[in-house]
C-alpha cells in the first residue's frame, strides 16, 4: 500500500528521521548527518521518479556528501567534494547532481559516472537554494546575495570547455535581502511559475516564460521557507517568527445564477493583513522559532513544517490545525521532505533495482593537466514528461 513518509534532517542532531505522516510512527533513523536547509536531495532510479532510493546529503561542517540507501540504516558512501556545499539538487531525470557552494559556485556532476562536468561562478555569495523545473529545462538558483538566477540546464551540461562563462537566462534582482527559499510549479518551463521568498519579508511570483514578476506579497516578518500546494492555488510561507502564513492565490466567489466562480486574488500593494485583528487571515500557529522548511503532502491536504524549535508539525492545510507533532529531534530541524514510502525501505533483499552511482569526483577530468578536454555527456531527454509522451 502506498503511504507517505517525511524525511527530516537536522543541522546539529546527527540523525535523519523517517516518519509516516498519517500514522505518526517513527520508521527508522539514519545516523551521521548534519545538514543545512536545502542541502539534501533524494535520488530515484531512472524512469521511476516517485520512488526514492538514495539520500544525498551535503554536510555543513565539511566539504563532504553522505549517501544512504533506504535499504540499510548505515552510511553507504562518503564523497569528498571540492567545496562545502550549501545547497544541492538532483535533476528530475536523475542524471545530474548539482551542488551550490558557499562561495557562489555551481558544480555539476553526472550521477552514473561521478564525473564533474562543470563549474561556474554563479553568485557573489553562498547559494542558498536550487531548484530544477519539472521538465529539466532550467535550474533556478537563489543566493545570499539576494539575486535569483535562471540557468538553462542545457548550457550547464553541454560540451563546452569547462570554465566557459555562461550567462544566466534570467537574472532577478528585485529582492533586497538574501533569498531563503524558492519553489517552482509543475509543468513545462514556459508554463511554470516560480515563487521566491526572501528575508526582506517579500514573496514574489515570477513567470518563467518572460521572466517578469507577476505579484509581490509582503508578510509581517522575514520569510525562511515556502511551499505551494499541488494545485498551485495556495502558497505557504514560513516566517522567522515561527508562524506559517497561508496565501490564497485564487478565491471562489459564489454567484447565484451561474454557480461559483474562481477569481485570481489581487491584494492591494501585495500586503495581506495578517495582524491578529483579522479573523480571516490564515496563520498556522504552533512553532515558536523560525521555520526552516515546508512541504506539502501529495494531495495537498497536509502541510509539514520544520523549525528551529526542534519540532516537526503536521498540519491540516485547510483548517490550519495541528494534527501531529514530532519532537524526538534534539536539534534545529533544517529539512522536511514528503515522499512516497520507498518500496524497499529497510529491506536488504529487495528485488527492485537500484540506480547506479559512482563516487563524485573532486576534479574535472583532464583539467589537472591544464587541458580543456571535451567531455562527452549524454543527455537523456526530459524525464517524466517525455516518458509520458512516449507512452501515449
Amino acid at each position: 500500500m502506498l503511504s507517505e513518509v517525511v524525511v527530516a534532517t537536522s543541522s546539529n542532531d546527527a540523525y535523519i528521521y523517517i516518519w509516516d505522516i498519517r500514522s505518526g510512527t517513527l520508521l527508522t533513523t539514519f545516523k551521521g548527518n548534519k545538514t543545512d536547509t536545502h542541502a539534501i536531495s533524494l535520488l530515484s532510479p531512472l524512469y521511476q521518479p516517485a520512488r526514492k532510493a538514495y539520500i544525498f546529503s551535503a554536510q555543513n561542517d565539511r566539504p563532504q556528501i553522505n549517501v544512504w540507501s533506504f535499504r540499510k540504516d548505515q552510511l553507504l558512501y562518503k564523497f569528498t567534494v571540492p567545496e562545502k556545499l550549501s545547497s544541492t539538487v538532483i535533476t528530475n531525470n536523475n542524471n545530474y547532481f548539482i551542488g551550490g557552494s558557499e562561495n557562489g559556485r555551481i558544480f555539476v556532476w553526472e550521477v552514473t559516472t561521478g564525473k564533474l562536468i562543470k563549474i561556474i561562478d554563479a553568485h557573489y555569495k553562498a547559494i542558498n537554494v536550487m531548484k530544477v523545473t519539472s521538465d529539466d529545462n532550467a535550474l533556478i538558483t537563489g543566493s545570499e546575495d539576494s539575486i535569483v538566477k535562471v540557468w538553462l540546464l542545457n548550457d550547464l551540461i553541454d560540451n563546452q570547455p569547462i570554465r566557459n562563462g555562461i550567462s544566466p537566462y534570467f537574472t532577478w534582482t528585485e529582492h533586497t535581502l538574501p533569498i531563503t527559499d524558492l519553489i517552482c510549479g509543475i509543468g513545462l518551463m514556459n508554463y511554470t511559475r516560480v515563487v521566491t521568498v526572501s528575508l526582506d519579508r517579500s514573496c514574489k511570483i515570477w513567470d518563467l516564460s518572460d521572466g517578469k514578476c507577476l505579484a509581490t506579497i509582503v508578510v509581517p516578518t522575514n520569510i525562511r521557507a515556502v511551499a505551494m500546494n499541488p494545485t498551485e492555488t495556495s502558497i505557504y510561507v514560513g516566517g522567522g517568527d515561527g508562524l506559517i502564513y497561508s496565501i490564497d492565490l485564487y478565491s471562489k466567489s459564489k454567484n447565484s445564477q451561474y454557480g461559483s466562480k474562481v477569481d485570481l486574488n489581487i491584494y492591494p500593494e501585495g500586503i495581506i493583513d495578517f495582524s491578529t485583528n483579522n479573523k480571516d487571515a490564515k496563520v498556522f500557529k504552533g512553532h515558536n522559532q523560525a521555520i526552516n522548511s515546508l512541504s506539502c503532502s501529495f494531495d495537498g491536504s497536509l502541510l509539514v513544517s520544520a523549525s528551529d524549535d526542534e519540532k516537526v508539525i503536521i498540519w491540516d492545510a485547510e483548517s490550519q490545525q495541528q494534527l501531529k507533532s514530532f519532537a524526538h529531534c534534539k536539534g534545529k530541524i533544517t529539512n522536511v521532505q514528503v515522499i512516497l514510502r520507498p518500496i524497499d525501505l529497510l529491506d536488504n533483499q529487495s528485488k527492485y533495482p537500484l540506480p547506479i552511482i559512482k563516487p563524485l569526483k573532486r576534479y574535472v577530468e583532464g583539467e589537472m593537466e591544464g587541458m580543456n578536454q571535451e567531455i562527452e555527456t549524454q543527455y537523456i531527454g526530459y524525464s517524466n514528461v517525455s516518458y509520458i509522451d512516449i507512452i501515449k
Partner: protein
Amino acid sequence: MPKTSQRKKKLKNQDFQKQKLKVGKKKLAPSTQTDISFKTKAIYVPDQGIVEEKKEITSSRNLTLKELLGQAKHYSSITRKDALNGIKEIYTNYPDEIFLNLGTVFEKTIPIFIDKEPDVRLALLQFYKILIPDLKIDQIKPFMSVFMAYLCSAMTHILEDIRLDSLKFLKLFIDNFPTLTIYYSDKLIPNFLNHLTGDMKMNSKSNSSSLSNSLLVNPKSKLGSTKSRAAILTSFYDFLSIIINDNQNLSNNNKNEDIKENININWTKQSSIQIYSNTEHVYNKNNDNSVVLDIFNAEQKSNNSTDRIDKDSLGISETNTFLKTQNIKNSYNLNNKSQLKDFMDILLPVLFNCWIETSSDAFIGNVNFSPTLVIIKTIIQIQNLVWKKYSESEKESNEWVESYLKLIINHMMIYFPFGNEKCSIKDQKTEDYVKEINIIFCELLSTFLSLNWNDNSKLITICLNNLMKYFNIFFGKRKNEKFVMINDIKAEHLNTLFPAILKLINSLPQNDSLKIVDIISEYFMKVHSQSGAKRSLIKFINQLLNENNLFYQNPVFFEHIKKVFSSLPRLMWELKTVYLNTTETIFDILLKLFKFGINFQERIQFLENLQMTMIPYFYVEIPNKGSIFGPFIQLPCELQKKLINIIYYFPTINEKLFKAILTCCKNKFLSSETIDKILEVFELRQNLLFTTKIQPQQYLSFILTILMGYNSNELETLNKRYLDKQVIPALKVQEVLSNSKKRKIDDDEINAKNEQIANIWKRQNEINNSVVKRLKSLNGIPQNKILNLLEPFTVKVFNNSLPDHSLYGLVFIIMNFIKYKDTCSKSYVNILCQNITRLLESIWSKDNYMTTPEYKYIFNLTKYIFNNLYLEMINYLSKDIIDINKAKMAYRLLNDIILKLEPNLIRKIQSLKVMIHELKKVLTNQQEIDNLQKILRFLDY
C-alpha cells in the same frame, strides 16, 4: 339727318332687345349684376424677423441645424462659412443636438475638406477642432472611411492649399484617434510621399546611393516652400511614430488581435489602387508564435523579393499608365524585417533629398529659428524612428545598412555637431532647439552603433569620434585642462541622451567607454544637487549598474565611478525628503554597492568610508550645535525599511553609526514598524556566519535601550528630578528632558494629551512584541536562560525612577519569560513583584483610571501576571499589609483580578485567606470590609 350706320343701329337695337326666356335654359343673369365670386393665390414673403420663435434649437441667427446643413452646400462661400460657424455655435450651446444628428452633420460637412475657399475650410477646421476631441471612438468609427476618402482626395487635390490644409485635418485625427487612423495608413502614406516629391516619379532602387528621386522644385509652388515642407514632415513624423509605436505596444501585448491586423501598411506605391491580401492578416495573427512565423515570413520574403524585381524592371519604363494596370501588391508589414527594409528604401531617399535641399543654407551664417530647422529635426526624427525599428529585428550590420550610414555621414554628419563654431546663434530659443536636434542625432547614431560591426570599420570610428566630440561639448568645455560647466542642461535633454550613452558604454571598447564614464562622473560632481539634471543622472547610474555588472566587478570601471558613489550619502542628505523617488534610487545604488562589493578585499576600506558618510543621515552630534537628526526620521516608512536593508550587508558596523541608529530608535517619531525592521535586520546580521558581529553584550543593551526608549544619561536626569523610585507619566518625562516650562493646561490640551499618551503606549506595546521576538531567537541562548540574562540589567534599571511606559515595557518582556521563573533567585522575584506593584499603583492612582488610554494595555498585562505569578504577588503584598496604602492596593488587586481567576485554584491558596483576614483588620471603610467578608464566604464555599 345724317345717315346712321348699320352698325350703330344694330347696337342701338341691342340695348332694347328683350331677352327671351327659353325653356330648359337658365335665366340669364341681369346685365347689371356684379360678379361677386373671386379667386386668391398666396404669395410667400420670407419672414426676416429674428424675434420669431422656432420650436427647434437654433443658432443665434435663428437658423435650425437643418437649415444650416442645407446652407453648407450654398453657392456663396460666405453663406457656407456662416453655416459652419452656426453649426459650431449650436454645438457649443447644445452639444446633444449635434450628437443626435452626427450622421447628417458629417455627411454634409465632410465634403468641405475639398472646398475651394480657404475661409470655409478654416471654419470647418475650427468646428472639428472642438467637436472631434469630444467624440468617443465608437461614435466616429462609422464615419472614418468617409473621412479618409475625402482626406485622401484633399491630399491629392490639384489646388495646393487644399493639400496643405488636409494635413491639419489629418493631425486632428492623429491626435485624437490614432488607432483608427492607422487603419488607413495604406492610403495615407503614399499621399505623404507625393506631397514631398510632388509627382509620382518615385524610382525606388534598392541601392539607394543613387538619389534619383526628384523633389518637387517649383519655385512658385507653395508646397515647395520650406514652411509647408516642415508642416508635411512633422505631420508625417507624427503619423509614422504612431504606427511604429503602436506596433511595439502590440507586440508587447498580444491580446488585441483585432487591432493587430492593422500593423500592415498596405499601399501600392505608384497607384492609389490597393489590394488587401487576406493571407497577410492570417500571418499576422500568428506573428508571435515563433516557429510558425518563421516559415510564413520566409514565404513572404520570397514573395517580396520577386515583387521587388518587378518593381525595378518596371521602374525603368517609367510609364504610369502601365503601372496602374499592373496593380502591384505592395503591402508592408513593418514587423517583418525585409518588408521594413523595402519601406525604408522608398522612404529614406526622399528624406535625404529633402535634407540636401534644406541643410545647405541651415547652418551657415546666422541661424535663426526657422522652418528649416524644423525640417532638419523632423528628418532626423523620422530616420531615428525607422532605424530603431530596424535594429529591433536585426542586430547584424550589412552592406545595405552601411550604404545608408555612408549617406548619413556624407550628408548629415558634416554639419554635426549642428550649430557649431562656424555659425552664430543669437537667441536662446534657437540654441535650445539646435541642442535638441543634436541630441536626436546622437540617438540616431547610437542606434547604428548598437548593431554589430566589424571592429575596424571606418564608418564606425567616424561616428564614435563625432559622438565623443559632441559629448565633450555637451557636458562642459575644457579650457586649459579645467572643466567648465554648462549650466543649462535640462533634465529632459539628459533623459533623451541616456539611452544613447548607455548603448555607447555597453558597445564600445573599454577605453572609450571609460572616457564617457569620466565625462559623466565629472559632470555629476559639478551639477547642483537639487537640480533635475542630478536626479536624472542618479536614475541613469542606477540603470547603468543594472545593465552592466562591469561596474562592480571590474576594478578599473569601479575606480572611475568611485567618486560618484562616495558622494551619494552626502547627496541623499542634501535631498532631505523633497525628492523621494531619487532618494529611493540612491538607496538602490547603495544597496547594490554593499551587496556585491563585499567580496572584494580592496573595496572594504571604501565601503567603510561610505558607511561613515552615511551617519549624518541618521543622527549626528555636533559639539557647538548639539544633536541633529538626519532626514531618516522623516522618511516614509517604506523607504526607511529599504535603507535599513543595507545594514545587513555592512562588512562591519561602525560604532558611531550604531549609536546614531540607536538614537534614532529612541526618537518617538520613528514608527514602531521601522524599529521592528531595524531589530530584525540586526538579528539577521547577528546570525550570519561570516560578518563581524556586534558584541552580544552590546547587542543586548541595544535591544533593551530601544525597549526603554531612554538611555542611562537620561534616566540619571530623571533620577535627579524625581527621587525615590517614582513612576513618571510619559508626557512629564518629555517635559523634563526637553526642559520646557510648565504651563497651565486647558481641556483641549488634555484631549490632545490623551491622544499623545495613547500613541506612546501603542508604540511601546508594538516595540515590546518586537523585542520579545528578538529575545526568543537570541543566537545560542535557550529561552529558559533569558531571564538570567536580563536579571542584572533589570535590577539596575528598577532602582531608578522610571517613566511609566518604559516600566511597562520591562515588565512585559519579563512576563513573557516568567514560565522559567524557577531559574532565578527569590530576591529577584521579590523585586519583580515590587515593581509590578509600582506600575499598577501609578496607573490606578489616576482619576478614572478605567478610561485612560493605558488601561487596556495594563489590564491585558495583569491577567498575564496573575496567571503565572499570583502566589508570589500575594506573598509580597501580605508581607507588610499594615501600611494602609499597600492594603488598599491589595484590596483592589483582589477585587479586580484575583477573583477572576479559576475559583478552584484560588480556594486552594491558603495565603490568600490569610491576607484577606489581615486586610479586614487594616481597612477602615465598612463597605470594603463587608465585601471582604463576602469573598471569604465565597472562598470557603
